């Protein structure tokens, strides 16, 4: 899952970037409003975490511009402005959530995950794929009832495919969603990752959970076993 954090406080940006990455998200960070808008227009983020008082361009202008251009990316406003009218204005301009500073990091993560579920029209944090059960809130995976240890990237790939089940996810989409910079990863990283994941979650003697579509990408069937 890929996030964009537009926040002018350097220290907050740094700790958010660290925490969100450790939570399994790919995160782009920028302190500048104009730069943030450019990122949001170019990339397909699952959620944008947006401060309001920003150098270059204020957060509400960024939000208004995105909505005017038809971008439906979920936006969570993260602001020190705590007045009811500030929150109403933000939500009416098209924000999907509003969190007032100071905030608990875990709450931010939970809200971001809730927005991601909304994006993929899944209300429950649990996803059942036959013998495989994913708890997106706790970021844990059970195979035939037994917990399986996945690396953050493996988990992110499984969640990405599970949330888009029934649809083919291309190699490029996987790279864009899991890695902050595609230039820095090896060319066969996706194949290696899929292979590693399959070994950990594929119960013996059952149809494959992750199916390869040659030349197109990977998918988890909608009616997964």
């Amino acid at each position, binding site marked *: 899952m890929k996030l964009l954090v537009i926040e*002018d*406080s*350097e*220290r*907050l940006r*740094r*700790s*958010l970037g*660290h*925490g969100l990455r*450790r*939570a399994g998200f790919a995160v782009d960070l920028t*302190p500048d409003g104009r730069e943030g808008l450019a990122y949001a227009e170019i990339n397909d983020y699952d959620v944008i975490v947006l401060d309001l*008082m*920003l*150098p*270059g361009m*204020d957060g509400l202008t960024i939000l208004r511009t995105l909505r005017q251009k038809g971008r439906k990316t979920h936006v969570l406003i993260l602001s*020190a*402005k*705590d007045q009811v009218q500030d929150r109403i204005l933000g939500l009416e301009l098209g924000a999907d959530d509003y969190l*007032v*500073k*100071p*905030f*608990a*990091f*875990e709450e931010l993560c939970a809200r971001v995950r809730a927005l991601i579920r909304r994006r993929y029209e899944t209300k429950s944090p649990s996803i059942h794929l036959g013998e495989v059960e994913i708890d997106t809130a706790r970021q844990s995976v059970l195979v035939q009832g037994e917990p399986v240890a996945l690396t953050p990237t493996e988990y992110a790939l499984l969640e990405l495919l599970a949330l888009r089940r029934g649809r083919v996810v291309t190699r490029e989409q996987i790279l864009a969603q899991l890695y902050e910079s595609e230039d820095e990863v090896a060319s066969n990283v996706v194949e290696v990752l899929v292979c590693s994941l399959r070994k950990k979650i594929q119960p013996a003697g059952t149809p494959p959970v992750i199916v390869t579509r040659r030349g197109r990408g990977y998918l988890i069937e909608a009616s997964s076993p």
Partner: protein
Amino acid sequence: MRSIRRRLIVPLLAGSCLLTLAAGLLLDNLIIRRLRAELDHALLAKARALVTLTHQADGAVEIDFADEFMPEFSARNAPEYFELWLADGTVLERSHSLGGRDLPRSPRLAREPLFRDLRLPDGRPGRLVEVAFVPQAEDDDDAWAEKLMDPTAPLPHDQLRTAVLVLARSRRELDLLIRSLYAVSFAVAALLASALGLLVHLSIRHGLRPLDEIGRQVETLDAERLDLRIRPRSPTLELTPVVERLNALLARLQIAFERERRFSSDIAHELRTPLAELRSLAGVGARWPEDREAVRAYFADVDAIARQMESIVVNLLSLARCDSGQESLERAEVDLRELIAETWSRFAPDAEAKGLTFELDAGPRLTAISDRGKLRLILANLFSNAVTYSPAGSAVSCSATVADGKLEVAVANPAPLLQPGDLPLLFERFWRKDSARADALHAGLGLPLAKAFADLLGYALTAELDGGRLVLRLHGVATLQRAGVSSFREP
């Protein structure tokens, strides 16, 4: 509580009622006097008529009185009465109406008529006139008539030649008339007083209506609605200055409230951001404590956040002390050039890192009597501002002069983002130009604090844009006077 309406109505009503009553009584008195005088005049005229009927001949006094010519003296109902005596008390004649009774007479003998009230023999209230006179003799000429009319003319010593006449008639009609007059007068006075009261009440109510309207409008004001202004529907000459002053006061209150509200909101906002940083650091650090390197770096961040919050609190406290006049001053001789150089030295490393050049234009002997510490704080804030917001590689300049007892220090630096409209906001607490918000070290309190210290020292701190350069100019008297600063205290 005292009421203007009551204070106007009570004296006006009481005064008008008293005046009406007094005028009525005076008028009544005049009319009654006139009526009584008329009665007395009629009595005297009739008495003189009877006197002309009295004459003397051969030492005897007689009266040619006949009832048929004057039937009022023998009438059964409401008769009149008279009695005629000689001076020695011998009754010469009395009216039939007396029925042999006497009318009262006084023991004196005088031509001057005497009037008095009495109870008539038939029980009615009456009025009498008593005159002493010398009956006319056959040989009397016009002199007798003149004496008769002259009350000062002496009477003869011979009492046999002097007669006394008492004439009495009822005054019931007069008394009734007087009572009616009193009744009518009091009724008119009461009506007049009521009408006056109503008139006074209506006039005052009408006159005070603009005041009532202002009162109602003032009642609607509260701290949440200070944008409202008092607007009377029909302005009055007397109340317009009051309304103008009130509206001016409201405008000042609104500005002060808005400033206070914005200030509180700004404080909250400025503290929310470092608090958010702290909570985020704590949250992430507690969630993944095994990331030792990252967590170790967080301690430096926490320390920086604490310093930033400390700086905000210290600056706010200094501002509060300046506002309340609790900041004390220490007068000392200050070498301005040396102080500027010393203060700049603190910022020189940062300036160098940004590639800024510094030009100081100040003579060698620039001495002022001032508070060195406060002056250094002002300069430090001006330099900090210049170093932070000057574009890299640009020039910061400082000039200082002391001439004719006046001190001036000007700090100038390029400010490409600043607009003329920003200048009045430079000294607003927590104000920063948009991009400055990214700088956690500057909370927008430096220039307000410099201004507060300048005010404390009796200096002016002004800002101007000169060809894209921001010039902050500190100027005032070179010798800090004790009387010049209200909160001056000796160290």
